[in-house]
């Protein structure tokens, strides 16, 4: 069972990563994360929106209402300068964690 802290950390990294390439609304963000992680990360509304609101409050992302060509209004999120700065160290932290876990696995097999 993956703990809440780890889940939150990976979910935040996933959101920052998909927003790196441009602004997205919540549904599209969830869909892309699910596709790109081959279903490993799936969001319910209760997991996604409170996290987006919290990240917005911390100043990592910013949401704004946009109207699409079809006339639909969607709240789209984009990375702020703070969010952009957070992404490389966060990625580094996670890759170090995974490297450490892989080493642990290797050691237990040896």
């Amino acid at each position, binding site marked *: 069972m993956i703990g809440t802290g780890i889940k939150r950390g990976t979910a935040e990294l996933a959101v920052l990563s998909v927003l790196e390439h441009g602004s997205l*609304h919540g*549904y599209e963000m969830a869909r892309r994360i699910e596709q790109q992680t081959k279903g490993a990360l799936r969001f319910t*509304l209760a997991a996604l929106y409170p996290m987006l609101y919290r990240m917005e409050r911390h100043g990592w992302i910013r949401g704004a209402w946009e109207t699409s060509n079809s006339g639909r209004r969607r709240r789209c999120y984009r990375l702020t300068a703070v969010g952009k700065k957070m992404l490389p160290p966060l990625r580094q932290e996670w890759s170090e964690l995974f490297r450490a876990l892989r080493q642990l696995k290797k050691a237990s097999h040896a």
Partner: protein
Amino acid sequence: MPDWEKVVGEQLTGLALDAADEREVHAELAAHLEETYEALLREGMTESDAIHRALSLAGDWNDLQRKIQSARTRKDTMTNRITQFWLPGFLTFALSMSLLELVQKFFPQPFMLRLDHPSVLLFYVPWLLTLPLAGALGAYLSKRAGASPPMALFSSLFPVLPLAAIFLIAIPVGLVISHTLSHSIVAAAFLTLGIEWVAVPGAVLLAGGFLMRVFFSRRLVSRRIVGG
């Protein structure tokens, strides 16, 4: 197609945000549900299945509401504790103590339940009958502030918590300092006081809290039925 904003509005009635903020949250969640619903229709799902599947995406609406409330307001954990536990708890405590004052003034004779001699349990029955109200008030205020169900029940128990804490400290201390021969008397005295002032009132307060919880969940279910 369902009116998704209406559906979301009917489920998240307890959000304590300002009107514009609340509308924004409703609109955003409704847009997400609408996109999901339309994608499911495109996959070939029937309309009613697509509605149910899209709604299931929300999971527990109560949980969603609590998390949104916490994320949208600038409250930290300490502030949440105050509004979800301490404040409802103190109000419940104040109400139950006021009720006890009134009962002792108008019905000064407690009900006596004789057990083995010399143990006698004393109960202010009219006070016990009013306590579910205090318990329900604690649970209601706590729930309204976005507390989880266990936290809301804990708030309804608040009036007996200080007494329980006193007993937890006093019983071992009393037993240590009492004379060896009087241990059984001291223990019996603490036991009867514990039943009179902690166990029975606690159970009654909890019953009030449970009733409020049942009321909340029934209201949620009926809203879901109405919302389709």
